[in-house]
């Protein structure tokens, strides 16, 4: 599903920052993978490249058989919409849309009609326990609730891959476990590939495969 071969990434600047130094990584369908590492180790950069929201300089990245380098932005958008669901640490919900509209938004970009996408959005909100909060704006929801809306939004697209960047980073411990249970449940029932970037060992310990990064290189790749 995800295939990195010798991927390098350097951020330009007065002092260019070589963040990824030749990453070789293969992730299969339905895998639940965590990527750990210290700040600046390159873990979020890997996730962003996986999600085609950032570019890479050298090497090859194949997503579901598609070589990403050289693809047009239009094609990249289509792949993102069809294959990937994002869960961000800061939720990234649109502030002026209510919970249902946020969940339905990716379906709009897929061309699903309004009635159908609202119905799908309500189903997923129900699944994350927020059906009664469908008309709440993000500012009217707690951090945990916002993250659950973000998860519902990611799931509503029926993606092949869920990419979660510190999904529990802004949550308290009880909510963290609720969110993790939800993600594990989705991985198990929907057979989705799930990559979670985290710096918390307790989160990584709940995944089947743990990858550790240091200074832009994979130093550990353990399957449980």
């Amino acid at each position, binding site marked *: 599903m995800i295939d990195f071969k010798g991927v390098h990434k350097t951020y330009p600047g007065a002092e260019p920052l070589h963040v990824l130094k030749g990453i070789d990584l293969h992730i299969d369908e339905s895998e639940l993978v965590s990527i750990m590492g210290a700040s600046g180790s390159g873990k979020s950069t890997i996730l962003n490249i996986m999600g085609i929201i950032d570019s890479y300089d050298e090497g090859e990245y194949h997503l579901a058989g598609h070589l990403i380098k050289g693809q047009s932005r239009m094609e990249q958008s289509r792949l993102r919409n*069809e294959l990937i669901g994002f869960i961000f640490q800061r939720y990234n919900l649109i502030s002026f*849309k209510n919970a249902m509209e946020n969940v339905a938004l990716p379906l709009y*970009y897929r061309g699903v009609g309004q009635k159908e996408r609202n119905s799908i959005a309500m189903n997923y909100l129900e699944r994350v326990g927020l059906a009664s909060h469908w008309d709440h704006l993000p500012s009217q929801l707690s951090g945990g609730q916002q993250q659950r809306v973000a998860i519902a939004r990611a799931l509503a697209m029926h993606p092949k891959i869920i990419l979660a960047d510190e999904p529990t980073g802004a949550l308290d411990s009880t909510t963290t476990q609720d969110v993790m249970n939800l993600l594990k449940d989705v991985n198990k029932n929907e057979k989705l590939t799930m990559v979670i970037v985290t710096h918390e060992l307790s989160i990584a310990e709940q995944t089947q495969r743990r990858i550790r990064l240091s200074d832009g290189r994979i130093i550990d790749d353990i399957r449980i």
Partner: protein
Amino acid sequence: MFNRDFWTEIWHTISQQKTRSLLTAFGVFWGTFMLVGVVGAFSGLNHGFMGLFSTTDYETLLFSPKLTTLPYHGMSNSRMWSIYYDDLEVIEKKFSRNVRQTGGISLINGDKRLVADNGKTGFAKVQCVMPSYFLPIPLEMRYGRFINDIDMMHKRRICVIGVNVASRLYGENVNPCGKQLRVGQFSYTVAGVIHKTNKVVEVVENEDELVLVPYTTGNAVYELEGKFDVAYALMDITPDLAGDEDKLLDFVREMHNVSPDDEHAIEVVSMQGYVQQWGVVFVGVNVLTWVVGAGMLIAGILGIFNIMLISIRERRQELGIRLSLGSNPRGIVLQVVCESLILTVSAGFAGMAAGLGVVTFLRRMVESGFDGDGFLGIPQIPFGITIGALLLMIVGGALAGFVPARKVVEQEVVDLLSKQE
């Protein structure tokens, strides 16, 4: 094909971001409103002036004798000379090919006491004029008639009074024709009431405040010795007759032994010169109108660019989220452009409507005659230019959305999501 979802999404974004949308719309509204309002209001002023100085195919030359400043033909300087009633016939003969009409005016010194037959009294100046007086002076008859050739021939004791004199003596909207009016020691029958239609042109006195009597009558009763204070000649101004005005003035000087080089010995007012002078004012008003209007338009367009730039900058993260969820860059640009277009078109039309409202209001005010002096004409909207300006605003609005949106979508999505630029 109409995509309801697309427009619903756009409307949702606009309506949910009221402050941002209102700020964007206000710039456009103000630009078109001011353009239409300012151009319309100035057009009224312009039409008013143009109406006062409508161009004619003849020149009205008014000339009056003054003290000479140069000795000539044995005559010393500082000599007062006169233009006489009999001179007019000589001038008409000499310049018969292009002088249509001549005439003269004499103002009787001092205010005369007026006594109406209803017992009311007042004071006014008396001016002795000829039937052609109507030609150089923009007047209209309120009641009765003006002085005619028969009055002149028979030295009739009739008078024509200014509208203000009539109001004071007989009351507003009362026709005093046929009534007796005592002016100083002499009695006259009121033959008509005049109103001056152009307050800018003033040859001797404001006619609304005068009592006008036939020149021949005045000459007899006030012992004018056939002299005029001001004489006038109406001349054709075809190109082949150019320069005849100067020849006429030289001829008048020659008739009265005034040096042809004595510019100060004869005071000349040229109505065409007046029109030309005011023409400069019209040009100035026009230039000012367009400078102000174009300034407003440019300010409006710059306002849209500015607000859209800020708006897109504020929306970086939102656009990043949309891109991360699978919106394609072209769709994002199209959405932003459509949002901008909806705001500019609706605000542009609203501004235009408000501007038209103001101009219509002004039009009604002018038509109702609130402007007694008639300086304001009917304001009009140069429709083509207004539509052009609106189109320019719309194009500006579309570009204002397109340029920053395109710049944004060319960036990596992750950079947009990071909130910082």
